[in-house]
């Protein structure tokens, strides 16, 4: 801790903590006083109870020492940045730390200029300005959003990394309260024609990123989201409006949404053919694998944390499923031999992250900790061997298998799946 050494003591700390003692005649030398200060004033800064604080401001900011940062993959037009999962609490991701995946950068779009065209197999093709969309009855719901490429860096039989953070592995996951208008409300306005079964959603970025989505899904719980965590959605998340499909892979949640075409078949765009498809190792390629299967990750303790001593520690993490609610998270602290049910922090919302906790008494010996989630369909988060067996080695999406962290006897935490497979 700064301030334990006399040389670092501020003048104010010296005066305020020692003056009374000096006056009482208990301190006879400067070194005595420094010892006293070291006990009584652990911080080097001014005593905040003795100086006036800052004034109110129009926009708040984080404490200077608290500066969580996204992890940027590459400075490129098509790139991503990952949410610092280990730095966060609860389930909501601060909007400025929500992960990003852009295919051609973030477009500059003016709220008042943006328009959404809805056409195709409809009675009345319509165009909506943002002021139109915002006038429709509104809904807010809390949901996770996860890129289906999340976790791709550890699906490797030959080179399993060990010095890798949960942010680098699984930071393409964030949770927000999203606000907008149900897609069903807008499709009711235009009148969907019989025979329609898909939509094409198209973005207004310079990749004109497009995805086909089953009509049933958008009618069920699809949303045109213009709000995120109480404010208007941020440019990196699709300002002024994005498609939000709870539980579906991130890429289908088309940002900067400018067009919905109602169709009777998928369009087979690049991002649903050459990307976001899964070669299964049996000569086939799985397409339109849109649902995000149940998954959990331990966020504490995780690399590069070092447990400073043995004793009681609370293992924490996040669990989520695209198919509904998480019903159970189990934790193992002995490499997967025994499992105990972790506590879930309510409310447990469907298609939303839930924080789980397990109080663990670490005896100081090397061990491996894991978590596995079960959702309301009964689906249990698989092992990596199960995914390898089912899908082969060549998939690069939907790697929702169990993760593991190894705790060394010195307390060092590293990614531990390589020790188990």
């Amino acid at each position, binding site marked *: 801790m700064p301030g334990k050494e006399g040389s670092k003591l501020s003048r104010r700390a010296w005066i305020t903590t020692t003056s009374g003692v000096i006056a009482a005649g208990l301190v006879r030398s400067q070194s005595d006083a420094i010892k006293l200060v070291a006990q009584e004033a652990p911080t080097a800064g001014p005593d905040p109870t003795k100086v006036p604080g800052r004034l109110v401001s129009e926009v708040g900011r984080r404490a200077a020492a608290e500066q969580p940062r996204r992890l940027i993959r590459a400075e490129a*037009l*098509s790139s991503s940045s990952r949410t610092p999962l280990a730095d966060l609490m609860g389930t909501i991701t601060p909007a400025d730390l929500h992960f990003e995946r852009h*295919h*051609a950068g973030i477009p500059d779009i003016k709220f008042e200029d943006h328009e959404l*065209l809805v056409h195709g*197999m409809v*009675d009345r*093709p*319509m*165009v*909506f300005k943002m002021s139109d*969309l915002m006038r429709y*009855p509104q*809904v807010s*719901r809390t949901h996770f959003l996860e890129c289906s490429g999340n976790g791709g860096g550890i699906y490797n039989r030959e080179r399993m990394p060990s010095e890798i953070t949960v942010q680098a592995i699984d930071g393409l996951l964030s949770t927000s309260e999203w606000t907008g208008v*149900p897609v*069903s*409300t807008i499709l009711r*306005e235009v*009148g*969907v*024609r019989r025979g*329609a079964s898909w939509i094409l959603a*198209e973005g207004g970025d310079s*990749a*004109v*990123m*497009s995805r086909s989505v089953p009509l049933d899904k958008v009618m069920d719980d699809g949303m045109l989201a213009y709000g995120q965590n109480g404010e208007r959605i941020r440019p990196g998340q699709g300002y002024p409006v994005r498609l939000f499909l709870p539980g579906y892979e991130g890429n289908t949640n088309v940002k900067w949404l*400018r*067009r919905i*075409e109602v169709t*009777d*078949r998928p369009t*087979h*765009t*690049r991002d649903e*053919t*050459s990307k976001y*498809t899964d*070669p*299964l*190792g049996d*000569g*086939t*390629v*799985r*397409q*339109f*694998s849109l*649902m995000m*299967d149940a998954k959990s990750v331990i966020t504490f303790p995780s690399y590069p944390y070092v447990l400073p001593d043995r004793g009681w520690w609370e293992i924490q993490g996040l669990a989520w499923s695209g*198919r509904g*609610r998480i019903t159970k998270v189990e934790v193992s602290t002995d490499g997967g031999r025994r499992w105990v049910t972790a506590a879930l922090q309510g*409310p447990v*919302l469907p298609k939303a992250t839930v924080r789980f906790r397990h109080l663990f008494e670490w005896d100081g010996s090397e061990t491996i900790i894991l978590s596995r989630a079960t959702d309301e*369909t*009964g*689906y249990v988060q698989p092992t990596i061997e199960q995914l390898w067996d089912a*899908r*082969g080695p060549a998939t690069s999406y939907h790697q929702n298998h169990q993760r593991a962290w190894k705790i060394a006897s010195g307390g060092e935490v590293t990614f531990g799946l390589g020790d188990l497979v």
Partner: protein
Amino acid sequence: MTRVPSSIPLGRHLVAFRMVVVIGAAVLLGACGSSSGSVEADASVVGDLSGTPEGLPAHSPSRFDFGAEASDARVAMWDIDVRPDGVGLPAGSGTVAEGEQVYMIHCIACHGPTGIEGPNDRLVNSEQWDAFPRSRAIGNYWPYATTLYDYVRKAMPQLTPGILTHDQVYSVIAYVLYLNEIITADAVMDARSLPQVVMPARDKFVMDDRLGGVGPIR
């Protein structure tokens, strides 16, 4: 694209939504009623713990009519996607030879002299695969040639998207298909021929066959 008569009565969905709200409230009662004894079901509370989609209020009009009808011209201006059956392809045509010239100006910097070198996505790989591909490129992974038109027209070249004419897009697609050994050097690509190009990986693609959370892991 195809106009089909008679609307789907979407009221079906609205009824379902209302039922869900009521069921959600009942679940709330069941889950919390015994412990607190004070939770009351209130069907007017939407977005409660049931988390289900919210229907419109019962007294909603049949249409709100916020927004404007889109003219045919407006739809035509923005309706730029291209489907495997060729719907959406514009008039125009392109050749392999013309495509090579387009490629050397607009594509080579990111995709390399022969479409293999990068630094961005590898475009060319005519080596086919049985179990799974070692690398994924147009010649061994893309199921439909029409996707090339949809994508190039919208997103390429990356720094100057939309700069290519229809003829140039057809041409550069012809050149890339030629490099992948899918069409011959004298082939001409247009709205009629492009959808007829059979891509080697076409029959490998299958719809998601996971089991909705039940059964074995797939």
